[in-house]
């Protein structure tokens, strides 16, 4: 799964038409619009398809569980599978991922256990997986802040001569934050091995892209940092994968950061507590549903004879299995232990926390552990 595309010199603007390798009808694109990138091999595409189907099943399942009150909140990535799965699949195990709240399905692809991913959204603790083991930071909530972490970690790896890359996701809205700018700039000046993957899903909660930027494409920003920028059809997993993979390899080879904008759409509400009917038309949602990233790849694979009934059934079974495991995990009583509140605040023990811990312990004892 390796690609070798020469990335263009830095002082050019990306074409306004998003780069794509598969069109919405599932046909392979040739010529200019491919930006010199080649369609990934068929087995890569099948694997991407499998991951997307499983991811969507998971996403839909978690949304349902959230509606049932099993989770405190859940930001769905429905419709954004090509970006999330395509980009993350371009990473190797030793690369680091810096996700946001939106990227639960990317974490799944990264091999993290569903129950561990959902610890945060269920409200058991702020984060539930082992960052180091998975080389995946906690899902960030304060927008754009994680992009700087991605740059810092990449620079540290570089100082250590470890040839790894870091990839951070950002939303279209998050690009407006000062931290995004500082991250782009630090990465470019330090030439850190970092890939900025901006999922332009058209909205920041209720605020549409036009109120977020006047740039023709978000990828136009890259040139202002002296960094290559790609404007990619974010519902074409082949393009997302190919471009991200090239960027990751470029990063690892010491050629610095890359900015990728994936143009996609948030089909679901922002989170379960959002009401998108207040700010967008059903028509618009329908329009985007017709550009579904999974269907697009499916059409191609079918036309290539790479997706038969057997494989389809196998994938469906895997997806159902995951959904069932997720349901199960979410119906088990969560493990929360109140006294752990004091355990991870400082490395150095603090008397004042020990005192407070004792107070809570006494309270719990008196009340039988409930509040």
């Amino acid at each position, binding site marked *: 799964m390796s690609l070798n595309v020469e990335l263009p010199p830095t002082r050019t603007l990306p074409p306004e038409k998003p780069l794509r390798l598969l069109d919405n009808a599932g046909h392979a694109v040739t010529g200019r619009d491919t930006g010199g990138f080649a369609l990934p091999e068929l087995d890569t595409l099948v694997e991407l398809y499998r991951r997307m189907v499983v991811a969507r099943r998971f996403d839909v399942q978690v949304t349902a569980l959230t509606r049932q009150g099993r989770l*405190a*909140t859940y930001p769905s990535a429905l419709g954004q599978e090509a970006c999330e799965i395509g980009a993350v699949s371009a990473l190797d195990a030793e690369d680091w991922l810096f996700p946001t*709240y939106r990227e639960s399905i990317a974490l799944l692809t990264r091999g993290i256990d569903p129950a561990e991913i959902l610890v*945060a*959204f*269920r*409200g*058991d*603790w*702020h984060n539930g997986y082992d960052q180091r083991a998975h080389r995946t930071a906690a899902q960030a*909530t*304060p*927008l754009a802040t994680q992009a700087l972490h991605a740059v810092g970690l990449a620079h540290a790896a570089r100082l250590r001569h470890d040839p790894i890359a870091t990839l951070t996701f950002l939303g279209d*809205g*998050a690009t*407006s*934050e*000062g*931290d995004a700018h500082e991250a782009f700039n630090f990465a470019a000046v330090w030439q850190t091995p970092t890939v900025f993957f901006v999922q332009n899903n058209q909205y*920041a*909660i*209720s*605020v549409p892209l036009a*109120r*977020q*930027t006047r740039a023709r494409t978000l990828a136009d920003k890259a040139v202002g940092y002296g960094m290559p920028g790609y404007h990619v059809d974010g519902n074409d997993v082949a393009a997302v994968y190919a471009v991200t993979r090239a960027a990751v390899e470029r990063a690892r080879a010491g050629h610095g950061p890359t900015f990728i904008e994936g143009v996609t759409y948030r089909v679901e509400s922002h989170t379960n*507590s959002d*009401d998108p009917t*207040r*700010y967008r038309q059903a028509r618009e949602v329908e329009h985007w549903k017709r550009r579904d990233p999974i269907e697009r790849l499916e059409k191609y694979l079918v036309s290539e004879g790479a997706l038969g009934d057997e494989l389809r059934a196998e994938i469906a079974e895997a997806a159902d299995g995951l959904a069932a495991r997720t349901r199960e995990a979410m119906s088990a009583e*969560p493990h*929360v232990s*109140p006294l752990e*509140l*004091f355990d991870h*605040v400082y490395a150095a023990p*603090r008397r*004042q*926390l020990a005192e*407070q811990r004792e107070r*809570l312990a006494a*309270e*719990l004892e008196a009340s039988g552990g409930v*509040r």
Partner: protein
Amino acid sequence: MSALAEAAPAPEPLAAPKPVTMAAALNRALRDAMAEDDRVVVYGEDVGPLGGVFRVTDGLQADFGEERIWDSPLAEAGIVGTAVGMAMYGLRPVVEMQFDAFSYPAFEQIVSHVAKMRNRTKGRLPLPMVIRIPCAGAIGGVEHHSDSSEAYWTATPGLTVVTPSNPADAYSMLREAIASDDPVVFMEPKSRYWAKAELALPVETAPMDRALVLREGTDVTLLAYGPTVTTALDAATAAAEEGLSIEVVDLRSLSPFDDETVGRSVRKTSRAAVIHEAAQFGGYGAEVAARVTERNFHWLAEPVLRIAGFDIPYPSPKLEAFHLPTADRVLQALAAWDWDLA
């Protein structure tokens, strides 16, 4: 509040009392302020068509148009920094930070400019603006959605910091904050947004710089603000059953602090405690305890207690109940005093 009192009559001055949530009262305050004063503009993240994630600005864009209330790009320093410029030009911006923790990117603008512009310019450039912050926790929010940030603002000279605990104050204080020539950090307790009171709006309660005795008592003064006022009232009710008479003071204004009202109560009861959600260490309760003690030391039978969150980052939803001060915890804390000494 004279400016407010003289203001044009509000749309429905003679409405009969009906149940009004704090969110609705704030919405009405914005609406009335916008109607009466065309210098008032409102912006922030999602305040337009969505009406804010807490619906405080619900319907305002439909009624006032995009030149009076609009969605800004997603950048808090940008929101506050542009509001500084607007206030310099004579507008009265009311901006929303979506949650306490999301005001932090605007920290420099708030501390180094909003708080200092009047001082820097010897009063030539006042900065009338309101920074609305849905504050504190107890809403089952994931990380970063339940911080208490008041200690940061109250430690900053130049800022006025107020917080209502009920719909009537929410209306009246927000009107007063908007009418003020000083920049005001207006903290809205998220957990109280949907609590209702029987109310006929518009209403004018006490001036926003005054603390109010909400319940009289003789044995203990409980000082609370924002979300913990209910906790204090609940504790007082429970204590009454056990023969303990608690006076509950709603501080309302965190900066300035109403030394007079609080001092009067404390000198009467000789025992005081302050309740807040934020961590105790370095929290606003420290200022309350320190100044109440400073000014009333020889009237105090016991040290001023602080009943606060633990000294830990705000916990996840499943654990917040163990962190937050409850009426029970308040009563337990009071029991620690040596009551025989009284």
